């Protein structure tokens, strides 16, 4: 159906408002929740596979096992409100790629990949490169996001997440997430700006000197309103400190 032009629909927690505002006027919607195993979490060896249809609420309640699950549960609890989380899905959020959304600002630090399916079969897209623009992803128009695969984390993995919003459940004005796991360089992501998330594959410098490095990273993004720049720097600083920076 999707190859034939139908618009995929998952939780419709982003698509629903677009339909009501007449910003989206699809001819047909294909309800992905009918796909087998669309929701649910399985672990195979060192990889946790999260079905794209897994709701934010299921993740909040601990559907993802281990240290990576603890991190994801904390993030999930701060997405929107419980009735929205009860229907909204991690796959829908990622595919929608709202620059201010939560998962796109966190999943890149976990490593791993998005599993896409389409007429040409299945392929894996690294999560760090999945979001390519504002509301744009690496999915082809006839492809669907099927699952997200993230590596398990050792219990000692440290992380920091900082999100600024004035009211609980509001979309973020600036988000940063930093993960420091033994054996790999620390990773960071800066998101919720008017651009796709900035993924920093080696955030060692940020952990060593959060204030100076945050200022340098944000300056590198070009022109930005002063309040935005201040929030973005604060986000990186706080996340780095929580992940173990001095």
């Amino acid at each position, binding site marked *: 159906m999707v190859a034939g032009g139908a618009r995929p*629909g998952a939780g*419709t*927690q982003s*698509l*629903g*408002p677009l*339909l*009501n*505002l007449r910003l989206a006027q699809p001819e047909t*919607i294909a*309800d992905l*929740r009918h796909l087998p195993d669309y929701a649910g979490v399985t672990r195979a060896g060192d990889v946790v596979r999260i079905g794209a249809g897994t709701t934010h*609420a299921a993740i909040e309640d601990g559907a993802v096992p281990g240290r990576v699950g603890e991190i994801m549960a904390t993030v999930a609890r701060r997405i*929107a*409100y*419980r*009735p*929205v989380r*009860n*229907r909204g899905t991690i796959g829908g959020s990622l595919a929608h790629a709202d620059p201010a959304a939560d998962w796109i600002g966190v999943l890149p630090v976990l490593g791993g990949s998005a599993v896409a399916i389409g007429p040409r079969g299945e392929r894996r897209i690294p999560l760090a490169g999945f979001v390519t623009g504002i509301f744009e992803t690496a999915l082809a128009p006839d492809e669907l996001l099927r699952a997200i695969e993230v590596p398990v984390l050792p219990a000692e993995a440290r992380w920091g997440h900082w999100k600024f919003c004035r*009211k*609980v*459940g509001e979309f973020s004005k600036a988000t940063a997430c930093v993960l420091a796991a033994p054996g790999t360089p620390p990773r960071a992501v800066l998101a919720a700006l008017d651009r796709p998330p900035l993924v920093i594959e080696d955030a060692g410098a940020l952990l060593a000197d959060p204030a100076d490095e945050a200022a340098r990273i944000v300056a590198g993004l070009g022109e930005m309103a002063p309040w935005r720049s201040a929030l973005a720097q604060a986000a990186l600083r706080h996340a780095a400190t929580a992940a173990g920076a001095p």
Partner: protein
Amino acid sequence: MKRIAIALTVNGKAVEVVAEPREHLADLLRGTLMLTGTHIGCEHGVCGACTVEIDGVPQRSCIVHAGSCDGASVRTIEGFADDAVVAALRESFSREHALQCGYCTPGMLVVARDIVLRLPDADEARVREELAGNLCRCTGYRGIVRAVLGVLADRRAGSSRAEPR
């Protein structure tokens, strides 16, 4: 455009209805089924007035497509008439002046019931966090928070005396 035939359970009764292609569940409930206890405020998921239970958990009926509810079980505020937790909440809402015009109340009660059952140990900060998705233009929220905390406290006291719930 094709109309969509759907079969669902609403407040325990099986119903078969035909929905417009772009109809959302709140319109189906209020229009076709005349269950006007479900209120519509913003129609984009923000205000919480339209919150109902779908398959046992609170969801926004304004951003759930009616066509996606084929086979679903929906419970609106009318369906909680005999529910013990909602009965306790109704009493404490009226005691604490937790409503004035009543527009937000159906959604507040559905969410408040979920808080009471899912988070029996919730404190004031948690209750406020959980209620953040339900807007009230009248009361200033203090009465609503107190009403929910009151039911939580009563239930904690009750269960420590091992009374039936």
